């Protein structure tokens, strides 16, 4: 970090905006901050002639001032309340500070404004440029309409603030970027004419676009938003260009019928503006130039309604100097910054940051609301990093769902979840404009679940996730079923609208079930969560049965549904086989062999069988490495089936039965969640719910994976020894007892019969 020259540093933050809803939480946060800011006892010693009380007072003052500099000072009264012993001194400090600031602040602001541009001749000359009028002003400098005297052409001259431009290295970078931007030739990119320095003033001359920025469009439409039908905002008159369609600006509403609502026209217009801006960005990206500061104010509309992307190469300046980062202008820029920009991860900022910022811009154009409305820098940063934007249609139902999907994809937190290129963004907007299906799709329940899982890598509570997914599916299905019932009861009253609604709900429910299946296959397909996978699939299957019942009048739909049901049933059957395999693997354990009283001949046969079909250990066997999860499962299932047949041949029927009982016992509580066991015991839904709760509780306590399949290395076909073996000994009997307590007396008796006398295996 460069050492700032004192003279260059003008900090406008001494009068931070204090949010009116400043909460107690923030105060306590602030108090904690005091501790953080002054961690070294050494800092407390230095004050001249300081008593302990003075030292504390100084620490509080430092913390307050630094909080103020960071833009979130607490109100004075709250500070006073927090430090009753320093109340008098602090009150005096605030009073004195206010009275001096009242005079000093305007002086400081003047000095600051002066630093932005020398206002000696109110509008004079700057090198080759005659300034005509000021057209804009902000932390980024002042923009003038000017005439380039030598070429007699009108330009927009942007004069950069000194503070930002003072660092030579930094200035060099700005120049390099601006030069590169000057080489961009695109019909929607404002051409840069010159970059230079005159009398220590750095300027940037570009083509003067006579029109307005999209920020002004938003402002005027917001002001004119008397109702959703009012789309006759002043800019539309320009933008629609109804008479002379410009070849370079394709008319957006190719399929318009003229009877559409103006709101609809507006949305299409926004999509078309976005498309053109995205193409302009793509052009720059192809040249290796990332804009980094796309926002409504940087997208200009000329008088013909054609959009122009302005200020290429300027972002370097806006983000560089810490002294500027707190001005409102920068906050305004921050509003559209991508999460990777906001979190200052320079290495991660690429062209997809522009995709994000353009998405955020379109969001605002469509909803006429800020995507993130944080009033302090900190709040804004937090929103950008953590909050999902409110879906557009929740703010305005008239916004087309496809457009919402497109915009939300563009503003995804993860760059990888956005459009990979600005061109792809433009293409999807074009598809929307052509009324073709868009490529973007909403994140599914499954994707959300996967993301959640990734964000919580240490979480073992897959069971909890299953519950969440099941709850989502259940809720939708319930709504769906009651809706369908209503339909049949009073079909006369239902209009097409309602039918569509039911259709949508049906699709939603089916998508949820499909998501569950996909999640089970792709995320839980291998590894230790087989129990969870199985339960997820069973839940999905139950929904499918309902769907099929609902659609029995529609043969085509029913056939498609049936195909899925069959597939899921097949997977479940395989899973059952895999789970059953545990039983036979137990046979390798000497204590189990003792329990079954195997003869020496039988033991020999078992050993021979184990040699022939070795268990997998520590992952797939070499031959399996290239297999997909699905192939791998099939192979395993085939082996288990072969294995099972041989085991059945070796053991007597009594031994086989006892083996089953021991296996059930050793599986611990999870055995009670098997569909066969559930069916045998006739468990009620309430009982299963109780067991799920117990399971979630158990996951919270135990660090490892759930017991079935013997942990990560078991892979369903593990050997009988070591940590890959059945780990159920980890379950203490007290825990198992909790589960059994859920059962009725009758069920307990059945369970007793299924498990037989207690098996006391050798502890290993």
């Amino acid at each position: 970090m460069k050492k700032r020259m004192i003279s260059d540093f003008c900090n406008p933050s001494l009068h931070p905006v204090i949010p009116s809803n400043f909460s107690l939480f923030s105060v306590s946060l602030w108090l904690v901050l005091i501790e953080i800011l002054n961690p070294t006892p050494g800092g407390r010693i230095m004050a001249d002639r300081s008593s302990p009380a003075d030292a504390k007072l100084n620490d509080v003052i430092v913390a307050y001032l630094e909080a103020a500099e960071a833009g979130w000072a607490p109100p004075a009264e709250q500070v006073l309340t927090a430090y009753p012993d320093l109340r008098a001194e602090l009150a005096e400090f605030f009073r004195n500070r206010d009275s001096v600031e009242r005079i000093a602040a305007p002086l400081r602001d003047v000095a600051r404004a002066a630093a932005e541009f020398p206002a000696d001749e109110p509008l004079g000359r700057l090198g080759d440029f005659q300034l005509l009028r000021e057209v804009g002003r902000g932390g980024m400098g002042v923009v003038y309409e000017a005439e380039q005297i030598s070429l007699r052409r009108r330009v927009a001259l942007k004069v950069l603030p000194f503070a930002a431009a003072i660092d030579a290295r930094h200035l060099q970078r700005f120049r390099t970027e601006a030069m590169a931007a000057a080489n961009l030739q695109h019909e929607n990119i404002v051409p840069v004419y010159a970059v230079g320095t005159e009398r220590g003033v750095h300027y940037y001359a570009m083509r003067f676009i006579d029109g307005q920025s999209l920020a002004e469009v938003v402002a005027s439409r917001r002001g004119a938003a008397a109702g959703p039908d009012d789309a006759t905002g002043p800019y539309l008159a320009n933008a629609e260009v109804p008479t002379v369609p410009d070849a370079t600006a394709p008319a957006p509403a190719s399929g318009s019928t003229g009877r559409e609502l103006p709101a609809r026209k507006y949305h299409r217009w926004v999509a078309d503006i976005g498309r053109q801006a995205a193409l302009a960005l793509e052009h720059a990206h192809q040249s290796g130039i990332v804009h980094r500061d796309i926002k409504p104010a940087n997208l200009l509309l000329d008088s013909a309604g054609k959009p122009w992307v302005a200020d290429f190469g300027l972002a370097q300046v806006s983000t560089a100097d810490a002294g500027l980062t707190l001005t409102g202008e920068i906050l305004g820029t921050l509003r559209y910054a991508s999460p990777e920009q906001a979190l200052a991860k320079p290495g991660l900022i690429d062209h997809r940051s522009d995709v994000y910022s353009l998405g955020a811009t379109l969001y605002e154009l469509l909803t006429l609301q800020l995507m993130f409305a944080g009033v302090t820098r900190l709040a804004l940063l937090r929103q950008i990093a953590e909050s999902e934007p409110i879906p557009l249609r929740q703010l305005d139902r008239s916004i087309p769902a496809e457009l919402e999907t497109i915009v939300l994809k563009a503003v995804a937190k993860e760059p990888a979840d956005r459009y990979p290129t600005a061109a792809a963004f433009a293409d999807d907007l074009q598809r929307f404009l052509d009324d073709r299906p868009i490529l973007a799709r909403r994140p599914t329940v499954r994707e959300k679940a996967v993301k959640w899982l990734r964000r919580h890598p240490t979480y073992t509570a897959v069971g909890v996730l299953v519950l969440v997914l099941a709850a989502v599916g259940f809720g939708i299905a319930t709504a769906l079923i009651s809706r369908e019932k209503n339909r049949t009861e009073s079909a006369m009253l239902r209009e097409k609208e309602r039918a569509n609604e039911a259709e949508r709900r049906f699709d939603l429910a089916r998508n949820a079930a499909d998501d569950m299946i996909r999640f089970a296959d792709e995320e839980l397909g291998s590894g230790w969560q087989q129990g969870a996978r199985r339960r997820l699939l069973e839940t999905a299957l139950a929904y499918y049965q309902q769907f099929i019942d609902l659609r029995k009048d529609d043969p085509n739909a029913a056939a498609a549904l049936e195909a899925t049901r069959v597939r899921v049933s097949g997977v479940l059957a395989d899973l059952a086989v895999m789970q059953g395999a545990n039983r036979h693997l137990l046979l390798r354990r000497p204590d189990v062999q003792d329990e079954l009283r195997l003869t020496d001949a039988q033991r020999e046969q078992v050993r021979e069988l184990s040699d022939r079909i070795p268990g997998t250990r520590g992952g797939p066997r070499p031959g399996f490495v290239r297999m997909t999860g699905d192939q791998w499962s099939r192979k395993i299932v085939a082996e288990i089936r072969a294995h099972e047949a041989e085991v059945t041949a070796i053991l007597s029927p009594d031994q086989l039965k006892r083996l089953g009982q021991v296996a059930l016992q050793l599986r611990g509580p999870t055995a009670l969640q098997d569909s066969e066991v559930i069916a045998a015991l006739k468990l009620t839904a309430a009982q299963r719910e109780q067991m799920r709760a117990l399971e979630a509780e158990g996951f919270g306590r135990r660090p490892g994976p759930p017991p079935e399949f013997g942990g990560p290395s078991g892979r369903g076909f593990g050997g009988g020894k070591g940590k890959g073996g059945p780990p159920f000994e980890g379950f203490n009997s007290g825990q198992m007892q909790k589960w059994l307590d859920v059962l009725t007396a009758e069920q307990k008796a059945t369970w007793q019969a299924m498990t037989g006398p207690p098996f006391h295996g050798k502890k290993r």
Partner: protein
Amino acid sequence: MTVTDRPLERYADYLRLLTRLQVSGPVRAKLDASDVVQTALLQAHAHRDQFRGRSEGEWLAWLRTILANALNAELRKFAAEARDVRREQSIEAALDQSSARLEGMLAAGESSPSERAMRGEELLTLAWAMAQLRPDEQLAVELHHLKGLPVGDVAEALGKTKPAVAGLLFRGLKRLRELMTGEKEKSLDRITG
């Protein structure tokens, strides 16, 4: 009595403060603000018949113009003296910036007349009061409140800890307010004689 009849000494503190605010870094150490102000006041006195305004605000603006010229002349002298390349750059940068700042100060007079007058009065009082502070308190208040430096930077500039700066600010502000309120009339009387 018109504004031009007032003793020019009355404005010395104000102009000195402005001067200090304009220059910094390598220049600040070498340049004697009092010298520059003295030069400016002499010039103002010599050319007072060229003043066309009437209000105090206009008078202040006029004085600032003269100060800006004097300061720029002085700074150029430095730049010329320090032909040593390493220094030249930083001094020229400071010069550019200082002139920009000063010119901004000139523009400051363009609010309403009453506002101007009030601000002028207050600025004069503040400048006078600032001059009465202990040097380290004065510098702390000046850097933090007038130049807008964060506490951390003020501490760095003064070679003190942040809590020590807080102590200076606390005492400096206290003294300032005492000076500006309680003793205001008295002090102004004293200055204006």
